[in-house]
């Protein structure tokens, strides 16, 4: 039993080349799902194996990596993936959005605007936006090829008929560059507008489903809607309780068993930065009784 050393960033170079080719194809056809020979990774399917494979294929020794899950750098899976790349690629890591060259994410896009030269790598569970309308790959592939997206519009219309509004709050379908309908991964629809004309490269990896897709910089990304029911993002009635930020996505934190709750930034880096700059919410440590 002789377990050999692993290559830089875990994957062997042939595999990286195969994945890079899939990425290039994805960039050439924005929003199109490129099948790729996804590998078993040392973390389970569903834990971000698609994103990890993309990051492993594009990362170099000079890159600075940030990993977030639910917007936070310190959720356990983000910690685990960051530790993985520290171990197998020995790269610099950061929690600061502005300093990172590659940001791997699950379920959020950072609040701080991305710039050209940065790459946002999304972990995707189900890449097919039509999957819950049509379970068969053979069918959905045809629908994409024929640009046959009527079914999706019918679904959104039925939402309005039943609930008075489009009842999709995350993984809200978008149309990329006027052609492919794409799943933005389960980010809240709050983040959809950030994808539109982003200066950063956006790559999407679905390991278990063996698909890669991409949104190149400065690409049109339009959330599907109707003229009389335009797309809207979530709004919050109160600012972040810690940093006072408005127009950001907030997590609800339960404080007690009597219905007490507070809203705080989902993007922990953004929140900490603002607090460091002196912004204070109504429940920020200085504004409260000292904690024991």
């Amino acid at each position, binding site marked *: 039993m002789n377990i050999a050393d692993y290559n830089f960033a875990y994957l062997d170079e042939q595999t990286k080349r195969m994945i890079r080719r899939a990425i290039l194809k994805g960039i050439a056809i924005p929003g199109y799902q490129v099948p790729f020979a996804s590998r078993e990774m040392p973390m389970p399917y*569903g834990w971000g194996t698609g994103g990890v494979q993309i990051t492993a294929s594009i990362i170099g020794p000079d890159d600075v990596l940030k990993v977030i899950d639910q917007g936070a750098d310190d959720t356990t899976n983000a910690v685990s993936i960051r530790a993985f790349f520290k171990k197998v690629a020995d790269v610099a890591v950061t929690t600061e959005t502005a300093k990172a060259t590659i940001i791997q994410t699950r379920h959020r896009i950072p609040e701080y605007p991305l710039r050209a030269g940065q790459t946002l790598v999304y972990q995707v569970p189900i890449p097919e936006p039509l999957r819950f309308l049509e379970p068969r790959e053979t069918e959905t592939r045809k629908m994409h090829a024929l640009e046959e997206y009527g079914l999706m519009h019918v679904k959104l219309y039925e939402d309005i008929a039943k609930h008075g509004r489009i009842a999709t709050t995350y993984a809200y379908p978008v149309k990329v560059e006027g052609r492919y309908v794409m799943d933005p991964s389960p980010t809240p629809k709050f983040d959809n507008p950030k994808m539109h004309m982003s200066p950063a490269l956006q790559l999407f990896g679905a390991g278990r489903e063996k698909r890669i897709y991409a949104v190149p910089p400065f690409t049109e990304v339009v959330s599907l809607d109707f003229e009389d029911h335009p797309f809207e993002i979530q709004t919050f009635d109160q600012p972040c309780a810690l940093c006072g930020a408005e127009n950001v996505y907030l997590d609800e934190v339960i404080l007690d068993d009597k219905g007490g709750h507070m809203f705080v930034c989902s993007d922990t880096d953004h929140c900490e930065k603002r607090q460091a700059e002196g912004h204070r919410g109504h429940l920020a440590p200085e504004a409260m009784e000292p904690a024991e």
Partner: protein
Amino acid sequence: MYVAVKGGDAAISNAHKLLADRRRGDRSVPALRIDQIVEQLALGVDRVMAEGSLYDRELAALAIAQSRGDLIEAVFLVRAYRTTLPRFGYTNAIDTGAMLVERRVSATYKDLPGGQLLGPTFDYTHRLLDPEIAAGSPVDEPEQRDVEEGRMPRVSEILAHEGLIEGDGDMPLDHVTGDLTREPLDFPIERDLRLQALARGDEGFLLALGYSTQRGYGRNHPFVGEIRIGEVELELDVPELPFAVPLGRIRVTECQMVTQFKGSAKVPPQFTRGYGLVFGQSERKAMSMSLCDRALRAREFGEDVVAPAQDEEFVISHSDNVQATGFVEHLKLPHYVDFQAELDLIRRMRAEHDARRTDHVEQQREAAE
């Protein structure tokens, strides 16, 4: 007060330490050795090799020890190692007709050339818990027969002489055998890829699907033509050499399921076959695989696809237990960002609902006054 949830690093490291402790268990009990697992939990090792798609008993045993006996976790460990191995080439197809057979039974013939050999089977044991094993009593040496020279013909070859059973079939000449670990599946797929997927598919899943065909969901009237377990030689063609190079022997279980087919305008009535081949000794898996293989050939025979077991996308997309367990278990990862989005929607809809009800009640009151 609320403190931002910090300390993922320390939590993970402590969890790993605790896991290592629980894996080892009571330190006064001797630690399991890998060779003990190889020798005494051999069928578990076989399952990990089969579903991990890597024929290496020691690595499979190590994975079983490391996973605390959780076989799907062990399969996962083996797969994650296997995928990093360089690919030298592909061996020639094994010849199960030349197998050194330890067990071979046919349900379609009372006797047949080569005979019926029970081998090491649970089949006719009475399932009574045996205190002797707990006591560690010595075990007698088994009876041995002399090694017979020559091939043991497969049942499919015997029936083939009369043309009553379909042949092995051919792929088109330019067909390159697929490799699902190197190319993404593209449905519909050919039988070579289907068999690969089934061979590494979850035993329990295939068992349930095979069972469902027996209960009428895609019935195909199966008979066990033959099951054989034993060792076969692996050979690799090396470009510089005029002969195939033997690499060693592996133990496999093969099942030929003979099933009915009415025939068509082009083909006279004959028996069709489902095929199962698994690393190590696992009849349950090989039989389930052969039932599923036959069910999935529905399209080929122009049969109606009416049952889950006949539905290629359904079966193949969900047969891999490493994928399945990953995606099911990922639900325990945090989803609070999405949940918040749903919570917000529900609150808004509830508020509108309540407002509508209040309006309605007031209107009724006004009408009554």
